[in-house]
């Protein structure tokens, strides 16, 4: 096990290097200029822009810039944003709590919806409940989040005027009021993301449970006279969940990465909106850092999923 872990971690190093090199090259070759906005201002002479580019090392050859970035990264220096001139790690840490709160709750909501609905639907296949759940799930993951987001805003903010649609990370209220305000403003983004995710997971849980529920050992369990409840929870769900756990683990990096579209619609100051505004501003150090951390998390959670898999199903051995 330890050897397996070590080997996987060692393999991760070249893949991370490869990922960072590709990311950096793509970003360096992409058109655009962090100081492009200065170009449209006639009062700023082009020389100013050129001087800024030189000062921030943008005119050096790409390989040199990459090596410089890599060396700094190894020292734990993430660089600073060209646009805000703030250290990148500060920027990311500022956005992290909101992202974790909003995306985390949406994943929890998705699980809360997907697990019971999927299991119940699978235990009564082709019943009315199953049909309704299936149809809703289908609608749920067919509708893109930007569409449901706008729909929610139109309905709950504009027509009914119940919920605010501009998310504010720092609310001045205190005590219960503070919690209440946070819940109120997070309701729509969490629902949009959670229901979308939940819909596809529902389908997944249902088919996983269906696969298991017809197996002989379940019939045996029933024949032993166990209650239906015990059969489903102890025998069916536990086994059916193995692929589901993997799927959920693999979607965990998304909690960090945020949800670009939804964050933009509701103005949630999360990592997703940081990423998109940096992309629009061609702020390479920030894009680089966010995407790189994301890549690391994907690799990490892949590893965790593999380990979890073996733990849930002892037949899988590590070699």
């Amino acid at each position, binding site marked *: 096990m330890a050897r397996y872990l070590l080997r996987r971690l060692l393999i991760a190093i070249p893949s991370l290097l490869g990922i960072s090199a590709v990311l950096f090259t793509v970003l360096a070759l992409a058109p655009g200029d962090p100081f492009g906005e*200065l170009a449209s201002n006639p009062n700023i002479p082009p020389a100013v822009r050129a001087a800024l580019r030189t000062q921030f090392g943008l005119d050096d050859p790409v390989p040199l810039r990459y090596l410089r970035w890599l060396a700094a990264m190894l020292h734990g220096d993430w660089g600073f944003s060209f646009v805000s001139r703030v250290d990148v790690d500060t920027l990311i840490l500022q956005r992290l709590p909101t992202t974790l709160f909003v995306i985390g709750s949406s994943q929890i909501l998705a699980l809360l919806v997907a697990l019971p609905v999927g299991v119940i639907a699978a235990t009564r296949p082709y019943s009315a409940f199953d049909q309704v759940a299936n149809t809703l799930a289908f609608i749920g993951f067919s509708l893109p989040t930007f569409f449901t987001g706008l729909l929610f805003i139109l309905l709950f903010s504009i027509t009914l005027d119940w919920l605010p649609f501009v998310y504010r990370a720092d609310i001045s209220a205190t005590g219960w009021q503070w919690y209440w305000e946070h819940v109120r403003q997070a309701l729509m983004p969490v629902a949009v993301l959670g229901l979308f995710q939940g819909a596809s997971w529902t389908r997944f849980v249902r088919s996983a449970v269906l696969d298991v529920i017809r197996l002989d050992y379940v019939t045996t369990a029933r024949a032993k006279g166990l209650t239906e409840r015990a059969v489903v929870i102890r025998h069916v769900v536990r086994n059916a969940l193995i692929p589901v756990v993997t799927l959920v683990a693999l979607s965990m990096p998304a909690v960090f990465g945020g949800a670009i579209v939804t964050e933009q619609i509701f103005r949630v100051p999360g990592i997703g909106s*940081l990423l998109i505004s940096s992309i629009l501003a061609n702020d390479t150090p920030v894009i680089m850092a966010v995407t790189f951390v994301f890549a690391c998390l994907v690799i990490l959670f892949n590893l965790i999923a593999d380990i979890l898999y073996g733990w849930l199903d002892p037949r899988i051995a590590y070699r």
Partner: protein
Amino acid sequence: MNERRLRSLIANVKAGRMSRRAFVHRMMALGLAAPLASQMLAHNGVAAAAAAAGLDGRPAGRGGGGALKLLWWQGPTLLNPHFAVGTKDQEASRIFYEPLAGWDSDGNLVPFLAAEIPDLENGGLARDGRSVTWKLKPGVQWHDGRPFTADDVVFTWEYAADPATATVTIGDYKDVKVDKTDPLTVRVRFSKPTPFWADAFVGSVGMILPRHLFEPFRGAKSREAPANLAPVGTGPYRFVAFNPGDIVKGELNASYHVADRPHFDTVELKGGGDAVSAARAVMQTGEYDYAWNMQVEDEILLRLEKGGKGRAQITPSGNIEHIQLNSTDPWTEIDGERASIKTKHPFFSDPAVRQAIGLLVDRTSVQDYIYGRTGVATANYLNNPERFRSKSRTFEFNVGKASALLEQAGWKRGPDGIRAKDGVRLKVVFQTSINAPRQKTQAIIKQACQKAGIEMELKAVTASVFFSSDVANPDIAAKFYCDMQMLTYNMTQPDPEVFMTTFTSWEAAGKENKWQGRNIPRWRNEEYDKAFLAAQGELDPVKRAALFIRMNDLVCGDNAVIPVVYRPRVQAVSNRLHADLSGWDNDLWNLRNWYRDP
């Protein structure tokens, strides 16, 4: 223009026989160039009567206005105005910092940290145009209680002009010398007579920084200054909190240097999202009081206004959406560059073709069906401030006349209906950036051109490429590797000098200057150059305005560019909010005077 008549009017005002207001009205009626008032009068020694840009009917006293909620669909990323990459950063800084003077909507100066606006009468302006002396307002305090003095002003100049600091305002400060004559007086010296003296320390580039906080962070260490993210200014609101790209918060400055100001207890600027939903939040749900830069189709704005909570406030500015006709040949490569100034365009070199294209741009339809209130059809490149607008130019849309013109000039229709002359076919490649109104405008023009026998190929380039300065990319606007292109040039100052450098021959973009020259159409005209040089040194504002009008008429008369619409600024404002906006300064330039009806 009748210069003698003007002079006599000015003399009347001077002698008190005529009020300033009447003078302005007479000027408008004259049609020359209207509310030049302050500058013209100031130059002739009539000091402006305390130009307090106050708004009437405001509630008395300081504070009590509750929270002011502003929505910017681009979040501010830093709060040092001298590092501002876009206006969003300048705006957020402007809540806390102030310049010596700001620009009102007519392009006149209003004092902020200055005690008065320098003019010839009060001795602030030197008669030779080589220096200007600013008297500072006494008794002004920084938010931390330290006094504001001439040292801060001098320091701001040193800071911004130092190349190692890497400010974006260096261009406004590097060519002047600033010295302190006493604790409340500074003198700005120019190397040559400078008619437009109100650049350094004025408006969006002029915000004064506190010396005691920025002194240790000059030059290479500038990035480390804590005050870059936590400003200490002199403005009406004190800094409370800032999250880059997300939110800026401020609270009332109880020791603000203007009595009874400001009105609001707190101010909050939220960033992010998109323009349409920002308009919604102000005009439909009323969640916010003010939203910046409504790049939204007028149709949507009109529909949202029916919500009754807010309105679109339109402020004139000089930004001009125009079509450039290439005067060089973009299809032949000479010395490793296309569109080299050594070449001539195959058919745009014929004035008749240029004139025909001008007749084929249906500006009225573009305004009526595409831009609405957010774009005003115009025949002029230089539209605002009004004192610089040429009254002699008109535009017309006439396909028949265009066809006749081409016919006369020898461009005959071929078998395919496309006109040609001496083997040159009128086939135009017309490019612009990807942006819905621009593609619609392109389509309108293409249709008219086809009727007149000009083949037109439309091209749309992603904005991030089109406006970039990436020398390796052939699709950038600055290279202009096609026949026609449409884009907006921004006019950020009420003085057109910088704006009009666009057509000087030494600014022609090309390989030599890495396509950084501002003259992208590469139009060169000796008369224009002469007029420009004369305007640069002309100290009499009336003559200077006439020179700029002449330049506009030269470039538009020759159809080197075809102005389409000028774009006023559009902001969404709550119906209860009174916001004093200007097209020549930041939106928040006069935030201290904003108030809300109870």
